[in-house]
């Protein structure tokens, strides 16, 4: 029963902070995209995989979660499938180790191939140099890839993702929103519920929020900071959002427009999505700066908010004129790629393409080796990341 038999396609898994993408190598899209959490019961809400307190808890959660994936969605025997894990280079070592342990020891998979998400994203484009911008739930990470090598020293990561937008939305709602009951009377939201659940916030962001244009955003800031400044732009119309029972939330147009502004606000340290892009380009070798700026790849579920990519380009162009960057960087143009996939599974698709090649046989880490060494190689471990080891492996 050879495992590289064509009948037994390897499984590709990308366990994100919010959603997990899983499917088989060589396919165009994941079979399913499911929330990265254990299903809740009547008594308690589901637990997200990344929200764990001890390693033991994570271990048991991962066992349950992967069992669910293998037998409910993929319907395969895990002992005869190679696994490709698409993970960020900045994935916590603890999570990675527990995941490897669960796969090798509990599920006894024959081999696992860990691939860096930023790098494999380029496999969906057929290019070898690009700045990969991954806007996820928890954070946004950027790693420039030059001629097929991720430049780790130029990485950028900030907690600017969907979670930040949801938090901003919650605080804006609690500040301004009213709840309209059956009789038409309006009560402040704070008095009805002091906290909104993650599911409700996510739903509001996904269905109603958008990223506004740069001129409108500037106008908003000016109106807020100067008392006698220009008046704010006319907000989009207010809509009613059904909350529970007869209660409707009055969803102000300004709230819908301003929630995503958290990604572009520059605080004292001048950190926003735009500054991260320029910083990542500046940290790269000088000859690669122009090619990187002309090969931006924006992936991750976060970038699917309407208007985000458009705004990001406008912000970067604007920020280039800032004295902090104008003297150090001269970019001709900013260009964005359109991968042949929806943004939230672009990295997964890269893993699925890589996993369909010969590389899965030659580069996977076999179970026998893991059982002897009890560890998986990692770039940040000097035992794996030295020249001698590289030449031997090659």
């Amino acid at each position: 029963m050879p495992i590289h038999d064509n009948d037994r396609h390897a499984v590709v898994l990308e366990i994100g902070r919010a959603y997990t993408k899983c499917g088989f190598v060589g396919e165009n899209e994941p079979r399913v995209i499911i929330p990265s959490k254990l299903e809740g019961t009547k008594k308690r809400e589901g637990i997200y995989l990344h929200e764990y307190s001890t390693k033991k808890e994570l271990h048991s959660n991962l066992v349950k979660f992967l069992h669910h994936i293998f037998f409910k969605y993929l319907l395969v025997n895990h002992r005869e499938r190679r696994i490709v894990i698409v993970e960020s280079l900045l994935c916590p070592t603890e999570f990675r180790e527990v995941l490897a342990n669960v796969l090798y020891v509990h599920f006894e998979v024959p081999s696992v191939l860990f691939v860096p998400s930023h790098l494999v994203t380029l496999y969906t484009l057929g290019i070898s140099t690009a700045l990969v911008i991954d806007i996820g739930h928890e954070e946004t990470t950027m790693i420039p890839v030059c001629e097929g090598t991720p430049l780790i020293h130029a990485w950028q990561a900030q907690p600017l993702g969907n979670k930040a937008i949801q938090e901003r939305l919650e605080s804006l709602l609690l500040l301004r929103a009213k709840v309209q009951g059956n009789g038409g009377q309006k009560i402040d939201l704070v008095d009805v519920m002091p906290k909104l659940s993650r599911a409700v916030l996510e739903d509001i962001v996904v269905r109603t929020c958008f990223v506004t244009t740069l001129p409108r955003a500037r106008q908003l800031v000016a109106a807020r900071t100067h008392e006698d400044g220009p008046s704010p732009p006319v907000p989009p119309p207010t809509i009613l959002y059904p909350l529970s029972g007869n209660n409707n939330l009055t969803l102000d147009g300004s709230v819908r427009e301003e929630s995503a502004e958290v990604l572009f606000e520059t605080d004292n340290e001048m950190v926003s999505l735009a500054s991260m892009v320029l910083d990542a380009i500046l940290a790269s070798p000088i000859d690669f700066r122009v090619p990187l700026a002309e090969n931006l790849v924006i992936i991750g579920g976060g970038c699917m908010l309407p208007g985000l990519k458009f705004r990001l380009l406008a912000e970067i162009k604007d920020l280039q004129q800032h004295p902090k960057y104008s003297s150090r960087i001269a970019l001709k143009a900013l260009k964005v790629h359109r991968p042949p996939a929806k943004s939230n599974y672009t990295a997964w698709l890269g893993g699925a393409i890589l996993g369909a090649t010969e590389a899965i046989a030659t580069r996977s880490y076999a179970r026998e080796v893991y059982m002897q060494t009890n560890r998986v190689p990692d770039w940040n471990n000097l035992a794996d990341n030295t020249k001698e080891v590289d030449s031997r492996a090659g």
Partner: protein
Amino acid sequence: MTHLFKSEKVQYLCTCGSLKPLCRTYFCRHCLALKCGECVFHEVDILYCSNCLENVPPGEARVKKNQCSECFECPVCDQLLLTRATNIQIPSAEDPSKLVPKKMFYLVCGFCRWTTREAGLPDQPSATGSWPDSDNVNSARVGALLEHYRSLAQLDKFEKEQKRQLKRRSNYLSFTADKYSLSALAARKRSGLPFAGSLGMKKETPQIYKVEPAVASEETDDALDPDIFTKVLTLSSVTTIDQRIRQPERQPVKSEDLIPIHKFLSVRRSQRCRFCEHNLSKPEYNPSSIKFKIHLGAFYHVPDVIIYRLARDDMQLRLCNRSQYPTHVRLLSLDQFALIAHSKIEELERSCGEAEKEKKSASSMVGHELCESPATQAANLKTCLRNAFKEKVNVVLQLPNEPILLPARDDLAEYELTAPQNLKEDPKAVLWRKGNKVVISTPLTVIDDELEDKRTGFVFEFGAVRAGFETKEVQPQPTNVYIPVFISLGKI
């Protein structure tokens, strides 16, 4: 039925160290040990559609992406879609001026009233199978990329192989040349190699499948529609995230773009012991059958305990034997168990040493030999002992000293009115018995009053017959099995 027996109060200690109610565990009759759902191997047995109960072979399931081709689910609310028929009038083929009725079909959700007409899909002339599938618009591009990277990987592998061959040969040559001062030509002749070119070159260099690299553009695909600032958003026209990710390749944003979703296939699993790889549970192949070919649920092999009566200082337990063999049960306190286990482990290890003399290593053993080897048994007892003493207990029970006979399950005995009275038993310990059920008295003493929730534990010692012995002519010889049981008593 499981729900009836799924009491969280009485829990059995599984071999892996977790506590489970009896009906949630398996009993491996080869290892004679409890196995819970997390310490057995699960295997996919058959794939079937849970709606039409059609058995789908694995090859077909792979092609269809684990989806049933006939059954559909509502894209809005996940409920099953129903097929509705309707009559329309169409011009007849013979005489275009006349109208003839024709049956057409559409799908409707019985729960949220969504219909395929809402999605703009025309009614279909046949009830099933003709609904449009969602095709990935990018499949041609992804296919080309796949081909490109496959050929690259092939080339990479080829070059590596060549390098290895060249290296090996050059090493060999330099060695011979140095030692015997032969010219390279002579060395080649001697070793029978061709004069020029290398062996590897005979194989053709793989061709790289060229693919156009993607071109970036200065325009993004998500510029906002100016309408967004002025038009009132209708919430119901926008899909939720759950509706979007159910169709990963399309992820429609507008409700009108939703299309019916093929129902996902379900799977029937069989379970295997992690240690000896024997089947613990195997369902029948027919999806509509609820029977098992093999079913080693612990419920049918291990005596069951429930709390019969509970007071401040008295407790009665009901034991029930559902296996087909009568068995003698002894309840041991944890300390008694420790004594017995230690002496057993010693004995087993002694015989283990003898077995080693016969040069039988563990790796060469399979199946029965592995399960029955003294080394395995000793190891099992050790882990059981270690796990049992990890549990916290604050109540001790006064357990009956004598072994108690539990008759085998006999469905007819249910109808017999009189209990067999010829057993010599301590009437203080055994309160009553009927058929395969016995109620025993176990007075309790609280030893630690710190925690409000009280917990006690004891160890079952009972005889079980190892699988594979029933068929032999000799009387099956039961082996003693030890299973720790913990009971949560709550506040008493």
